[in-house]
């Protein structure tokens, strides 16, 4: 597809369950970002992948959150033992990463709305 896609669109789970959220970036984009948008809030940075480099995990809120990016393309965000405060929209974005002096626009997916009951 032409844009960033995410699945599922909506996910309802019970407290304590694990969930996996998927992101398919734009083909050829080497940079991938995960953000969290809680109700009525702006986006909060979670994690960043660039090529085969070690990811920047500085935004992950707890060790229950983890993410992988296989083959430099698809990424999965996993939340273990979900809590009600994890309820939010999880947005993925991808971009080229052509160099320090070149602006690389981040293109966003439609997000996954996670509801933890």
């Amino acid at each position, binding site marked *: 597809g032409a844009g960033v896609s995410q699945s599922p669109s909506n996910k309802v789970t019970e407290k304590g369950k694990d969930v996996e959220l998927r992101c398919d970036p734009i083909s050829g984009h080497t*940079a991938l*970002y995960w*953000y969290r948008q809680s109700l*009525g*809030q*702006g*986006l*909060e*940075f979670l994690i*960043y992948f*660039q090529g085969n480099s070690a990811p*920047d995990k500085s*935004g992950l809120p707890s060790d229950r959150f983890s993410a992988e990016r296989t083959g430099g393309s698809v990424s999965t965000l996993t939340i273990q033992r979900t809590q009600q405060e994890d309820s939010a*929209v999880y*947005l993925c*974005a991808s971009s080229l*990463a052509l*160099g*320090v002096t070149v*602006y*690389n*626009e*981040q293109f*966003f997916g*439609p*997000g996954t*709305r996670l509801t933890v009951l």
Partner: protein
Amino acid sequence: AQTVTQSQPEMSVQEAETVTLSCTYDTSENNYYLFWYKQPPSRQMILVIRQEAYKQQNATENRFSVNFQKAAKSFSLKISDSQLGDTAMYFCAFMKHVVGGDMRFGAGTRLTVKP
């Protein structure tokens, strides 16, 4: 750390009128980017306009323009000739001028354009 503040949770404007959304930020960086994103109910984040901090000239994109005051760390968005389709959440965002710079967002302003 960088912070972005949008002090107007909600705003409304009559169709065809002009509205200005406010944004301030705090940073010790000298080179950075500033953005305005639009998020309609579909949740899709759409880039409206961006500004490079090293450019003194304010960015414009059709009906959208910014007032960038670097010394005051202010970055407001002006929407001219407002249209019903402009109804959305608007987020101001900051990004350091580095490869892989993550964006820091404000809490957003909900704009309603009334017919």
